[in-house]
């Protein structure tokens, strides 16, 4: 059977970054958080609780490989070796298959903690949109989880759904947000809940000559609506932060804020110093940051021993 598309439009670029201002050798404790998600994996390395390096990569079908891949990528621009890490915590959907980790913590706890670090202690509600699930989390001023809810056995309105859509409409995933606003007026949202049937519906709309941008708007609106339903069930409290890949999709975020009547907090570092230094702010590494911070806290409070090999 002939396949129409060659390019895979859902694929977004992988990235990595190292903090030039930190000499890790001077640091006491090196901790890492490895977040192996169903679609993307991130590794975050911290030196004494300061963000040192991270990577954001795609997950393959094998979690251990994906974990190695993202850790190596995070350190590729540094002379640090994996063996220099004191303590590593695995999180995310593949957390049990992170070879270099001494412990695992779920991404729910890690995202809440990470969001607290990135956005600040006023955060009370965290929305994390992962590849296959959508988590709404209520937390306290320390980033401690008070209550959370997740979408059910159907993937409607998850990151994966958005990728399927991008592929179908042949528009790179990162372009969907901006283009979804280049419309005359807001169209009615896609009604199908099922990822696959949404596809059918989209094809129908395309054939009826609906402009692509309008269809993107309709899809983003549908996704925003489903997230709103989840947040309503949880009971939303400000301030409100969004982590994960979807935070990068303005098309969904703006519509979500409109429907909620609540603005999400700006994507800038809570710590002014980090902001001044212009450290990159990647919403997808929140889970990894949380994990690395928990690792740091464990060592500091003597709840764990350093597993440093070199």
């Amino acid at each position, binding site marked *: 059977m002939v396949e129409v598309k060659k390019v895979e439009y859902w694929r977004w670029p992988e990235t990595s970054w190292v903090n030039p201002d930190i000499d890790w050798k001077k640091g006491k404790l090196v901790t890492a958080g490895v977040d192996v998600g169903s679609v993307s994996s991130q590794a975050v390395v911290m030196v004494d609780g300061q963000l040192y390096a991270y990577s954001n990569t795609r997950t393959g079908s094998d979690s251990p490989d994906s974990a190695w891949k993202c850790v190596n990528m995070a350190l590729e621009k540094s002379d640090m070796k994996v063996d220099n890490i004191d303590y590593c915590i695995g999180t995310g959907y593949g957390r049990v298959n992170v070879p270099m980790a001494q412990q695992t913590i779920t991404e729910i*706890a890690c995202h809440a903690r990470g969001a607290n670090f990135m956005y600040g202690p006023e955060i009370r509600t965290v929305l994390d949109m992962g590849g296959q699930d959508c988590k709404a989390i209520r937390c306290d001023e320390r980033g401690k989880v008070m209550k959370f809810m997740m979408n*059910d056995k159907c993937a409607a309105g998850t990151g994966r759904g958005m990728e399927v859509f991008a592929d179908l409409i042949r528009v790179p995933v990162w372009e969907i947000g901006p283009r979804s606003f280049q419309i005359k007026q807001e169209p009615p949202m896609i009604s199908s809940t099922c990822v696959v049937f949404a596809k059918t519906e989209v094809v129908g709309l395309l054939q009826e000559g609906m402009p692509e941008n309008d269809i993107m708007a309709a899809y983003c609106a549908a996704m925003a609506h489903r997230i709103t339903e989840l947040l309503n069930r949880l009971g939303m409290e400000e301030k409100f932060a969004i982590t994960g890949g979807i935070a990068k999709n303005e098309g969904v975020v703006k519509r979500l804020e409109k429907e909620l009547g609540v603005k999400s907090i700006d994507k800038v570092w809570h710590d002014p110093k980090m902001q001044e230094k212009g450290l990159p702010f990647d919403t997808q590494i929140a889970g990894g940051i949380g994990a690395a911070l928990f690792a740091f806290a464990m060592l500091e409070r003597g709840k764990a021993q350093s597993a440093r090999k070199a």
Partner: protein
Amino acid sequence: MEASEILKQFSDVWELRHEYAKDWKRRTGGKVLGYFCTYEPEEVLYSTNVLPVRILGGHEAPTLATPHMFDMWCPFSRDCLNQGLQGKYDYLDGIMATNCCLHPRQAFGAWTIHVPTPWNYWFVMPNAVRSPRAKKFLRGELEEFKKAIEAWTGGKIADKDLDRGIDIMNTNRRLMKQVYELRKADNPPLTGAEAMTMVWASQLMDKREQNDLLKQLVATLPQRKLERNTGVRLMIVGSENDDRPFMEMVESIGGTFVIDDHCTGSRYFWDEVVPDKDRLQAIANRYCDRVPCPNKDWGMEDISRKRFTHILQLAKDYRVQGVILIQQKFCDPHELDIPSLRRLLESNGIPCYFLEFEVTVPIGQFRIRVEAFLEQIQAEELFV
């Protein structure tokens, strides 16, 4: 016998329920009667030589049931019918249902048409259980049921027989309650999965036989030490639940179920028959006064729920740290109670997590949710 051995026997009865029932027939020459809901008065059946067995989950996709119950009906009820259609219950001499929720009623309806079963009976269990009128009506209903059973088995049921039936049931209830009592300990001598398996077995095996085993269990359990950490003390509440893989998964990742409120758990045996000269009235009173299914949990003149007070008390008595609310997909009785129950528990400082069950649960997806819930309960650990 060792406690573990006895628990193993219960587990075997649960796993080999059909073999057990067939063998029981061979041994005793009695009749086996299948039932769907715990409002069937087993006392009357234990007054004569009838073994009541509850139709429990088969836990595979109920494809044979689809032509008879489309998929808005609860997966558990479809699963029950499916096993009937597969012929797994070909040894049943009879099948009965009652005014339970509408889902098993569909299964029963299709069963009576498509699964050859010599005898079937509809028992009208009143819904207004808190009304004194219901007790009187139910007594009459029991009178008719007794006659029907007599006609079916061809033997009279005298008062002394009813006394025996009541005693067998009460003894069984008392013993299981004693076992549950032991779960109040800091380190319960049995897991939640084991405790519930005991109850499932009681719904499947001859209670006289189980009572003998339970007596030994109650004697030996206190000496049993489990090589595991109790971890978070959990309560599980909700729809029919015989999902052992789920219970075991939760108890393998840092939690222990110390108490439950299920019709396949404590709610089944919690209340005894208070003896009375009028035996049938005594039985009727028990079924009206027992901890109700949400379906019957409404007062004629008030909106309070008897079950909620009971659950809250259990949570206190068993020092519960968190509650997992489970609901069979489409289970209206529980869907109607859960939002209110959740509010009640949380306002009493007991965190809850909700999960929707089907005949097979996606263990992987549920595991992360439960792990996160356990972390939420122990979160302080991560922060101080």
